[in-house]
């Protein structure tokens, strides 16, 4: 899957008309209310090989995946707990033969379902069966606006054409469509065209998400990191389009935090409003959390309930709130705003998930890491390490375009 759920936008609608954001009304009996939406990574299998994939570098094999019956039990349990929406994601969720059955079960127990897909495995019949099973929203990832760049980034021939086709079917079947575009140095020059593509596809929403650098993306950072000029240009393009397309296309924008002064409020804060379930059934505070070694995550296969795991497990409680924080976060006025940034990024870049996220300008490691990223962004290393079960495959030499600097 792509990385943009990290923003956890489920509760950010701006009510002005007597509609209140639900989060504020949740049960006071629980310290941390059960999330409104849960991400289900039902498989890590995927026909694409995106070099920025947010799945862990150690992928769950097909043989370890929860069975159909186990996922159904999870869905029922989530609905009972008060979860309202589920996002079927992966890997590629439609790589599972039982996806229609799972969506149907979600509908049966009253859950609203979203599909986050690379789209290349879908036929019109299958998409239509998903719609009939109650699927309410389709989010399709795009790697560019034309096949040359897009298919190269995806590491799959003909992927872009298939995506366009599935996007059209989605609208024909009257389902809302979100186009998800993950941006980096080698496709940022296509941003204006991607925005137009989303309009032409009659999408409701476009997510412009800059790559977040952990897992596969960190391995590919030198090939993906945009220059600061590119980012400034990106922000200009997005802001202009947001105004111009108001009422036609909603555009969400995720800035790359390497170039921000303060880190992102990752997952809305660890264990505060989000969890996801991995293909093998681990309940995780973030889809990249398994990259943090030394943390034990509980599984839905254990005899614990999901509610217990959410409330009490060591992994969720370790970085909850502000009590765990070291300086400079501990005495920082922003600690309740960003909760110290991203734990996975802190671990990936400093070796300790309990450090301040180095994306923060106040982190002692910020200067050094930012400098390195800046150097990488200006470099000419454009070869990708493709994501796969074999630990990654380096792109054949000479397949890259000429570098697209800013």
């Amino acid at each position, binding site marked *: 899957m792509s990385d943009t759920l990290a923003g956890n*936008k*489920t*509760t*950010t*609608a701006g*009510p*002005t*008309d*007597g*509609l*209140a*954001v*639900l989060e504020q*009304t*949740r*049960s006071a009996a629980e310290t941390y209310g*059960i999330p*409104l*939406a849960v991400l289900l990574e039902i498989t890590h299998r995927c026909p694409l090989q995106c070099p920025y994939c947010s799945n862990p570098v150690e992928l769950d094999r097909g043989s370890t995946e929860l069975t159909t019956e186990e996922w159904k039990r999870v869905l029922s349990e989530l609905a009972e*707990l*008060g979860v*309202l*929406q589920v996002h079927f994601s992966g890997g590629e969720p439609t790589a599972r033969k039982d996806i229609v059955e799972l969506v149907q079960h979600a509908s049966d127990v*009253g859950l*609203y379902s*979203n599909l986050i897909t690379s789209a290349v495995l879908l036929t019109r019949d299958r998409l239509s069966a998903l719609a009939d099973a109650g699927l*309410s*929203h389709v989010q399709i990832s795009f790697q560019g606006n034309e096949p040359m760049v897009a298919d190269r980034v995806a590491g799959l021939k003909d992927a872009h054409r298939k995506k366009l086709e599935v996007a059209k079917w989605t609208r024909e079947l*009257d*389902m*809302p469509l*979100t186009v998800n575009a993950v941006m980096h140095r080698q496709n940022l020059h296509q941003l204006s065209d991607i925005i137009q593509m989303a309009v032409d596809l*009659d999408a*409701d*929403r476009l997510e412009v998400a800059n790559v977040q650098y952990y897992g596969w993306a960190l391995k590919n950072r030198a090939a993906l990191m945009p220059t600061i000029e590119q980012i400034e240009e990106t922000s200009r393009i997005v802001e202009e389009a947001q105004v111009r397309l108001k*009422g*036609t296309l909603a555009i969400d924008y995720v800035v790359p935090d390497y170039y921000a002064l303060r880190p992102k409020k990752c997952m809305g804060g660890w264990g505060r409003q989000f969890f996801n379930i991995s293909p093998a059934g681990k309940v995780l505070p973030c889809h990249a959390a398994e990259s943090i070694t030394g943390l034990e995550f509980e599984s839905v296969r254990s005899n614990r309930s999901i509610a217990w795991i959410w409330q009490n497990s060591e992994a969720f409680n370790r970085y909850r709130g502000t009590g765990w924080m070291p300086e400079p976060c501990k005495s920082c006025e922003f600690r309740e705003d960003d909760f110290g940034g991203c734990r996975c990024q802190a671990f990936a870049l400093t070796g300790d998930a309990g450090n301040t996220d180095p994306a923060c300008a106040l982190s002692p490691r910020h200067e050094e890491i930012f400098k390195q990223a800046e150097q990488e962004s200006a470099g000419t290393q454009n070869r990708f390490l493709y994501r796969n079960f074999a630990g990654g495959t380096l792109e054949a030499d000479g397949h890259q375009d000429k570098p697209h600097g800013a």
Partner: protein
Amino acid sequence: MASRNISVSETSRPKLPRHTKLKFDETRQVWVILAPERVLAPDEIAVEVLQLCDGARSVAQMVDQLAEKYAAPREAIATDVIAMLQDLADKGFLTEARESTA
């Protein structure tokens, strides 16, 4: 795209699009609207009006019904209801039943 930007008047017959669901959340004991990537909690009046949006009833009929129920001046109710429905429509939570729908 046209279907998404409706303009609400007394003759419209609004309804919730298939992907927008109004439901009572048992856990939190509140009504919620479920939409792509969003969960909203409408207030009591919004819920009452949304429940009348079945694609068959016209806004005029809804206003009549509410004016009678609350013994309130029709004009005031009409203004409020149309403003509220327009706002919901602008946010994508309402669509219009086709003209042919009786």
